[in-house]
C-alpha cells in the first residue's frame, strides 16, 4: 500500500477571484468583498492586503479609498460564489481521488495513489484555473493537518504548490517555525493554554506527551498532535456515526417557486428540529436539506453539510440551511415539499475540541435557552428568528453586487 498522502486545495482570495473571472476590470486592482448588508470586509485581493485593509474592516472606513479609485468594493454575491465553488470542486473530483469538501473554497483530496504528487499538483492547479478561472494553492503532506499547514507555505511561495519535506531536519525546521495557533484544529481558547504549558509551535505539539495532551486538552488536540507527527487520525470523509436523526418536513399549501417562501419554510423546519434536538440533549454534526419539485419536473434535490462544531443552535443551523437552499433551488421549478434532517446526533457533553470555532458558544447557548424558556411559557414560536418571517425583507442590501453570471438568465456575461 502507498504511504498516506493528502492534498489541501485552497482557492486564493476566493470571493474576489470569483468576481474577477467575469470582470476583467477587477484584475490587478485592489478589490474587497463586503459581508451581507455591506457591513464589513470578508475577502481581499492581494492588492487590497497591500493597502493594509484588515479582514472585518467596516465598509464606512473604506469610503475614501473607494472614492479615490484606489479600491473596488463588491457586495457578496453568494449565488455566484456557491456555483463557482461547485465548479472548482467538480474540477478537483475528476481524477477520482477521494474528496472531502471542507468549506466553500477548500477541499482535501487523498492523493496517495499519485506517483508524482508535485507534478499532479502543478497540473491540477493549472487545469482548475483554465476550466474555472479560479486560482488555487495546494499543500501536500502525510496528513490533512500537515497538508493544511503546508498549504499556507504554498501560498507564500507564490508558485502555489508546496509539498511537505520528508521527515528529517527540514521538516523539523518547518514545524518549529509554525506557531501553535496557526495549526488547524487548535482553537482560540486552546492555543493560549498550550502556549502557557510551553507548547508554542507545531513542532512542540507534535512532540508533546500524548497521555498528557489527552488528559489536559482532550482527544481533539491529541488527534491534531498525532497528525502533526505524521500519523493519520483524521482520514478523508470520516463522518460521525449517525445512529439516529431528526427529520422535519411538510408539504407546502400549494406548489411554489418563490425562494423567500421556501427559505422561510426551511428556516421554520430547522427551528422545529433544533427544538427537538435540544429537548433530547443532543447536537447535530450535519444537516441535510431536501426540496421536492412538483410532479415529474425533476428529481428531489438534497444536500448535506457537516457542521464544523456539532450544534443544536437554531440560528447556526438556519444559516447553514439557508446556504444549502440557495444551492438546491432552481427558479424554473415549482416545489411542493421541503424537509430537513439533523444527522450525526451526539450527546451535548460529547462535543469535541472544535475546529475554527469563532462563536461565543456559551453565550449563544444562554440566549437560546432564554428563547426556549419564553416559548415554553407562551406557546410555540412567540420568539422566532427573523429568517422564518414570510417576507423578502430579509434580503440583504447589496448595493455593489455584481451580476449573478452563472445562475440567472437575465444576468449572463455579455461579450462585445
Amino acid at each position: 500500500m502507498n504511504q498516506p498522502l493528502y492534498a489541501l486545495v485552497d482557492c486564493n482570495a476566493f470571493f474576489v477571484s470569483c468576481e474577477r473571472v467575469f470582470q476583467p476590470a477587477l484584475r490587478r486592482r485592489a478589490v474587497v468583498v463586503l459581508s451581507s448588508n455591506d457591513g464589513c470586509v470578508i475577502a481581499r485581493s492581494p492588492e487590497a492586503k497591500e493597502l493594509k485593509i484588515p479582514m472585518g474592516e467596516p465598509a464606512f472606513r473604506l469610503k475614501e479609498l473607494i472614492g479615490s479609485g484606489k479600491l473596488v468594493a463588491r457586495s457578496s454575491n453568494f449565488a455566484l460564489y456557491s456555483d463557482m465553488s461547485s465548479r472548482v470542486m467538480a474540477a478537483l473530483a475528476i481524477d477520482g481521488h477521494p474528496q472531502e469538501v471542507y468549506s466553500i473554497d477548500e477541499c482535501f483530496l487523498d492523493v496517495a495513489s499519485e506517483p508524482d504528487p508535485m507534478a499532479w499538483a502543478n497540473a491540477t492547479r493549472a487545469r482548475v484555473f483554465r476550466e474555472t478561472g479560479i486560482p488555487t494553492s495546494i499543500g501536500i503532506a502525510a496528513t490533512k493537518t500537515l497538508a493544511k499547514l503546508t498549504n499556507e507555505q504554498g501560498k507564500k511561495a507564490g508558485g502555489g504548490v508546496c509539498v511537505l519535506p520528508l521527515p528529517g531536519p527540514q521538516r523539523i525546521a518547518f514545524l518549529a517555525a509554525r506557531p501553535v495557533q496557526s495549526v488547524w484544529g487548535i482553537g482560540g481558547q486552546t492555543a493560549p493554554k498550550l502556549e502557557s504549558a510551553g507548547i508554542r509551535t507545531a513542532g512542540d505539539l507534535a512532540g508533546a506527551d500524548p497521555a498528557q495532551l489527552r488528559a489536559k486538552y482532550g482527544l481533539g488536540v491529541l488527534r491534531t498532535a498525532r497528525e502533526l507527527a505524521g500519523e493519520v487520525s483524521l482520514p478523508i470523509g470520516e463522518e460521525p456515526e449517525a445512529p439516529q436523526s431528526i427529520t422535519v418536513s411538510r408539504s407546502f399549501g400549494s406548489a411554489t417557486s418563490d425562494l423567500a417562501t421556501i427559505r422561510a419554510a426551511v428556516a421554520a423546519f430547522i427551528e422545529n428540529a433544533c427544538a427537538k434536538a435540544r429537548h433530547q440533549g443532543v447536537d447535530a454534526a450535519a444537516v441535510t436539506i431536501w426540496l421536492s419539485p412538483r410532479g415529474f419536473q425533476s428529481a428531489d434535490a438534497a444536500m448535506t453539510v457537516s457542521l464544523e462544531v456539532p450544534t443544536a443552535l437554531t440560528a447556526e443551523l438556519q444559516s447553514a440551511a439557508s446556504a444549502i437552499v440557495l444551492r438546491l433551488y432552481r427558479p424554473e421549478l415549482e416545489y411542493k415539499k421541503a424537509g430537513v434532517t439533523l444527522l450525526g446526533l451526539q450527546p451535548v457533553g460529547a462535543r469535541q475540541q472544535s475546529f475554527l470555532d469563532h462563536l461565543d458558544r456559551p453565550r449563544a447557548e444562554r440566549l437560546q435557552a432564554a428563547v426556549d424558556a419564553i416559548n415554553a411559557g407562551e406557546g410555540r414560536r412567540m420568539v422566532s428568528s427573523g429568517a422564518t418571517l414570510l417576507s423578502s425583507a430579509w434580503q440583504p442590501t447589496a448595493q455593489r453586487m455584481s451580476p449573478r453570471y452563472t445562475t440567472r438568465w437575465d444576468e449572463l456575461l455579455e461579450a462585445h
Partner: protein
Amino acid sequence: MAERLPTGFHAAAADRAEGRVDLQARFVPHPHATFLVRCASEVLTSRAILVGDLCIVDRSLEPRHGDVVIAMAGAEVLVRVLDHGPGRRPSLVGDPPLQPISVDPEAGVELWGVVSAVIRALR
C-alpha cells in the same frame, strides 16, 4: 412478488432502455467548465453569430486557429475569432474583418474560453 408486473406498451418501452437524446450531454460535456455568455456585438455576423445569441463557452477546450472565442481585453469582454495560423502570433479578429488585437496576457489581453456552440431562440 406481490407487486404488479408491468405489461404491454410500458414494458416494451422499458425493454428498449435507450435514453432520449440529451441536449445537455451533447452540448455541455464538461458542465463545471461551461459558461453561458450572451453575444452583444455584430462583429461575427459573417459567422452567423448575432446580437442576443447565447454562446456556450467550454473553458476545458484548447483554443485552436479559427475557433470563436471569448477573450478579456483590458476591461472589455470580447467575442472574436482566434487567428493563430502557422508561424503567426495569436490574435483576435472579427468576421467581417476588424483591426486584429494581439493576444498578450502581459498587455491584459487573454483568452477566456472557446465557444463550442451557439443557441438562438426563434420564439
